[in-house]
């Protein structure tokens, strides 16, 4: 199937390789240490979750990894190669796609156009012209629409969407670029429970097809349900890391900011 071919290195689940790595990454704003010395590695075909309360530096870490936020210290590696000096726009071409914490859709563009934006970087000259003449839509776009179930709102403007739907459109836009690594910043914020389950199911399905993901969330149940591995952060620092159930049971994690009731989430 073309999807797995495009995503390249179809992973052998027995032997995952590290696709993305951070070494001692720090982002400081003056005296504020938003991220302070995070080591992290993301393996092919896995979902790594970054867990932590608001303000713990999760989104800043994501910004640092996607080079939208300048590093104060540390290194970021993609396929073992330092990309700390690569222009941020090149990262998308190298297969990294992301969503943001807030809805960031272009307000004057219908949903379809917003999703197409994700696929545009993969278009060759011929398909660009073809779109002008015949308004054709790349297969990756139709696939992303199908996956996220936004087929019935393609004609609407982002302002006319419910919050949950807007978030799904954002995921569709990220998927439309057929990324190798997908980074999601609180993808289910503002969604109701069925919608959350739907998104969690989608992410797991994508994982099974070989899509590597980095998921930032503070919905612990969603993280436990979805991720292969969790990294817990607090105040910019690494608190715990490991299997989701172990991390949420970790006394440091629980007592610092989750509360004991999450034992139940881990047991399920």
């Amino acid at each position, binding site marked *: 199937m073309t999807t797995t071919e495009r995503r390249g290195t179809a992973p052998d689940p027995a032997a995952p390789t590290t696709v993305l790595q951070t070494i001692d990454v720090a982002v400081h704003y003056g005296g504020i240490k938003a991220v302070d010395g995070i080591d992290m590695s993301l393996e092919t075909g896995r979902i790594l979750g970054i867990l932590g309360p608001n303000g713990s530096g999760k989104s800043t870490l994501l910004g640092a990894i996607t080079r939208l936020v300048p590093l104060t210290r540390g290194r970021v590696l993609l396929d073992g190669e330092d990309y700390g000096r690569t222009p941020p726009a090149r990262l998308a071409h190298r297969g990294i796609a992301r969503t*943001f914490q807030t809805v960031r859709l272009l307000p004057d563009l219908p949903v379809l156009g917003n999703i197409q934006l994700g696929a545009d970087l993969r278009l060759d000259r011929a398909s660009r012209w073809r779109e*002008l003449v015949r308004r054709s839509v790349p297969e990756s776009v139709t696939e992303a629409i199908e996956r996220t179930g936004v087929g*019935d709102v393609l004609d609407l403007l982002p302002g006319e969407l419910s919050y949950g739907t807007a978030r799904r459109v954002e995921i569709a836009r990220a998927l439309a670029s057929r990324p190798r690594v997908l980074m999601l910043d609180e993808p289910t914020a503002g969604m109701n429970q069925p919608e959350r389950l739907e998104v969690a199911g989608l992410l797991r399905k994508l994982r099974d097809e070989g899509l590597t993901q980095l998921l930032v969330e503070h919905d612990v149940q969603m993280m436990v349900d979805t991720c292969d591995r969790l990294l817990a952060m607090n105040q910019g620092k690494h608190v715990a890391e490991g299997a989701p159930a172990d991390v949420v049971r970790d006394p440091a994690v629980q007592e610092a900011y989750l509360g004991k009731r999450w034992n139940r989430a881990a047991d399920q």
Partner: protein
Amino acid sequence: MNTWWLSNQILIQSTFISLLLALSIQVPLRAGVFSFAGIGSYAIGAYTAAILTIRYQVPGIVAIGAGVLLAAAIGYLLALLVARLSGLYLGMATISFALFLGVLATNGGDLTGGATGLFGAISTVTTEHVIAATVVVVVLLAASERGAFGRKVDAVREDPQLAVSLGVDVIRVRRVVFVVSGALGACAGGMNSLLRTTVSPETIGFHLVVTALTMIIVGGALSWAGAAIGAVIFTWLPTVLQSVGEWQLLVYGLLVAIAAVYVPNGLLGLLQTGWRRLRRRGRRIPAEGAAAPTGVVVQEDPESELAALGGPTTEARP
């Protein structure tokens, strides 16, 4: 028709030249770049074309082309110079670029003819040439507003950081915008000089900034069509308003104020919103019974599966 055409030659020419000038501001604005460099480029084009025709007897079209190339090159250098500026600061910097060129023209001695300017730039450039050039420009710009390139520019304007995360080289888009703006401004300036056979510091002054901005604000900044609406209104309004005499300026001011406050996307924005509503109303009635896909425009395209997609997803949702 023929008599109308002949008796309104000057206004027709002005309409198209104003449109090119307005486009030289609209193109950067569409990419979120608040630059008036197009006005400075108008001066470059106007003087280059006049100097080349008067002093070197260069054919008119070549003279205009030389001005366009020169202004495009200067536009690129200017983009490098002001790369770190944005918003009002960029606006001010580019206005001062235009004013600086005005001073240069006034003090240019024999080359620019000083404060009186240059006369006798006789050429074979005609109204038809102006219209042809404008049509070519408009077709290219209209194409650039659609498809992948249009989306790219929209993303750069609305959310540069998002654009970067989608793989758009924002800095490069901004440079291209400066080059295009320079070329458009110079084209307008060169044609104006050769059609009027004269250029002076007065014709390249600050009033051009106001004229171009007015056209875009009232017409609409997000498309070439907005600039066209503005160019037509503000070129022909003085003729229509002859009867009110000195009150003309008041009418201008009111129009701009009303547009800025109540119609932020200009007359074009009003038309587009109206059109969207009409289309949607027309569609809603048949769509209710049938599980028809909601107006995806790609149905006849064999590559697209969207038409098939709309059905199942509509049904699947409660």
